[in-house]
């Protein structure tokens, strides 16, 4: 019998015992719904966690530090490789070597310092950082208002939205209450003045390590406001104001670490505390890290930090999936029960079909089609139910979060693959449930079956 005919006859049979088959299908729906609801929450939580990290735009960067920097000495990686005193300095030479590593697009010093800014005659104190032009495509700039820097040394500035809000005198505890668009409009194109300390080298010659500190002012134009998360994991110093990297490097601003490092500085060449290596893709972060470690430096990446987080979510998803599947297992027993009952009821009909030429495979196919149809219908309805349940849990959680003084979070996500996987899973589980009834029906002795009243 052709598949189409099997399906048609199966649909007819399902309609014949509408109530019983509907209840069985509902059982499958509940199973699929619990699976979808569980997994959508797991996925949602995972996305919530990685969203915060992604907003920092650091999934494709490796932070490189010198082993001479003893601030993080107790970290695991420090125990391998050269001793701190023998390890290379993080200077221009090292920068060139790191840039040459396969997969690295560029390496730039992580320059940041606290500076005073004057905007509309009011002083503001904040951390300022250099940003290379290549950061333009970073995820962190998604939804940015205004433009990115027009050039490498342009006197332009991009604000983090919380700082923008501060400039406007808005006070908000919760970053989600501030819309980038709202704070950007009154600020774009305005001027502000940056006051900073310049490190001026002493004259060339023997006394090359001496320098003086000068106070400078730099006028800047606000060109963009971005949603960069100030709570992201960018080291200890989170900047809220960004200027072009080249401009930053040319300023020779006094860095927080320079007084400390000056003790061993032997030339006027700058020695950096940290370099940021931008990698061509998140997939290459691992290999780049290994290569840089071989050069004798310490590395750190967000991917490193999220490894255990990802493992946690994988296990969480697994357990949620198992709990969700339990309901589907119960539902599959329901399918077996329904179909075995159907064999008893339709014994004579099966006998008739065999007498007029149905093969074992035809009868088996018919029962498989019935099981499969219940699986697909139940799966489709279950996905919808799971979606609704997930939404309801998300809504309830948000009401709770808001009451507890937290911001709203989307802890629920139903990606398309989950819909497809749930449908396929429900279909396959139903077919497996149909195995026993189908083979039992196929093996029915037609003479016995025809005698059955």
């Amino acid at each position, binding site marked *: 019998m052709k598949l189409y005919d099997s399906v048609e006859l199966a649909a007819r049979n399902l309609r014949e015992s509408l109530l019983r088959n509907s209840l069985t299908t509902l059982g499958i729906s509940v199973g699929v719904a619990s699976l979808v609801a569980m997994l959508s929450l797991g996925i949602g939580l995972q996305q919530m966690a990685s969203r915060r990290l992604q907003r920092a735009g650091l999934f494709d960067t490796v932070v490189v530090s010198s082993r001479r920097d003893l601030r993080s000495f107790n970290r695991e990686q420090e125990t391998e490789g050269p001793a701190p005193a023998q390890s290379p300095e993080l200077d221009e030479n090292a920068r060139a070597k790191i840039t040459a590593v396969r997969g690295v697009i560029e390496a730039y010093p992580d320059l940041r310092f606290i500076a005073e800014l004057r905007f509309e005659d009011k002083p503001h104190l904040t951390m300022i950082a250099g940003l290379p032009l290549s950061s333009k495509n970073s995820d962190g700039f998604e939804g940015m208002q205004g433009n990115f820097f027009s050039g490498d040394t342009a006197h332009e500035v991009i604000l983090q939205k919380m700082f923008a809000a501060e400039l406007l005198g808005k006070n908000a505890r919760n970053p989600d209450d501030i819309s980038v668009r709202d704070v950007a409009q009154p600020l774009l194109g305005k001027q502000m003045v940056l006051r900073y300390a310049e490190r001026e080298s002493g004259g060339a010659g023997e006394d090359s390590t001496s320098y003086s500190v000068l106070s400078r002012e730099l006028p800047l134009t606000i060109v963009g406001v971005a949603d960069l998360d100030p709570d992201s994991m960018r080291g200890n110093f989170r900047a809220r104001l960004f200027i072009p990297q080249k401009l930053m490097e040319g300023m020779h601003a006094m860095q927080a670490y320079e007084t400390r490092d000056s003790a061993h500085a032997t030339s006027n060449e700058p020695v950096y505390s940290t370099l940021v290596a931008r990698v061509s893709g998140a997939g290459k972060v691992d290999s780049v890290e290994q290569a840089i470690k071989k050069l004798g430096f310490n590395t750190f990446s967000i991917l490193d930090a999220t490894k255990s987080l990802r493992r946690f979510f994988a296990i969480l998803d697994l357990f949620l999936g198992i709990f969700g599947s339990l309901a589907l297992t119960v539902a599959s027993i329901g399918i077996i029960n329904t179909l075995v009952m159907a064999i008893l009821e339709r014994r004579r*009909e099966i006998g008739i*079909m065999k*007498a007029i*030429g149905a093969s074992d495979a*035809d009868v088996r196919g018919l029962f498989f089609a019935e099981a499969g149809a219940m699986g697909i219908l139940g799966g489709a309805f279950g996905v919808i139910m799971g979606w609704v349940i997930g939404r309801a849990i998300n809504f309830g959680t948000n009401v709770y979060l808001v009451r507890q003084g937290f911001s709203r979070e989307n802890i629920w996500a139903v990606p398309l693959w989950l819909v497809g996987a749930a449908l396929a899973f429900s279909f396959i589980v139903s077919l497996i449930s149909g195995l026993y009834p189908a083979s039992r029906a196929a093996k029915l002795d037609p*003479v016995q079956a025809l005698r059955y009243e």
Partner: protein
Amino acid sequence: MGSATIRAVDGASLQIKSGEFVALLGASGSGKSSLLNLLAGLDSPTSGSVAVGDQDLAKLSRDQLARYRRYTVGMVFQSFNLVPSMTVLENVELPLRFAEVERSKRRAMAAQSLEQVGLAGRLRHRPIELSGGEQQRVAIARALINRPSILLADEPTGNLDSHTGTEVMDLIGNLNETLEMTVVLVTHERDLAEKYANRLISLADGKVISDQINAAKAVARGES
């Protein structure tokens, strides 16, 4: 009690020629229906052989038996055995689904077969809405749909009054004569057998006790 073997058909040996109309006669439990089930490929003999054409049914696989039932034999039962949830047309169409005949052709073939048995106007009815005689004619139309060479009828008039029984038997007799279809009729009504069959085979306790040419039918034929 226990598992004593009952031989429903025991040592019965007979040959049926193509185009014959054979009646299997006997009391209830004589083994005539079991013999018919063997001929229909619904049952397999524990020993011996059932040869139809050049194939031995005893040696066929379950799949091959299904094909045999589908294409070589058509069956008509005492209790009609129509699928109650299907319309008349769908019932007749059912064997064509197993034969994987195209959907568009199926309807036309089934309608034509029903027309042959005089039920052209009842296509959309359910079996329960028809009289016994009409139901049996639907069953005959279904048995004929794959153009089998053998028609096996198991007490086809058993549930019918004598008038409709005669109508149904006339139809079967007509198929035997016009299409030269081999007919094996199981009945316990000797009169009916004598009226339609060319050959009368009597069974008792699973054995053939007599096998004779139906003289009455031969005479009737000779006269006509």
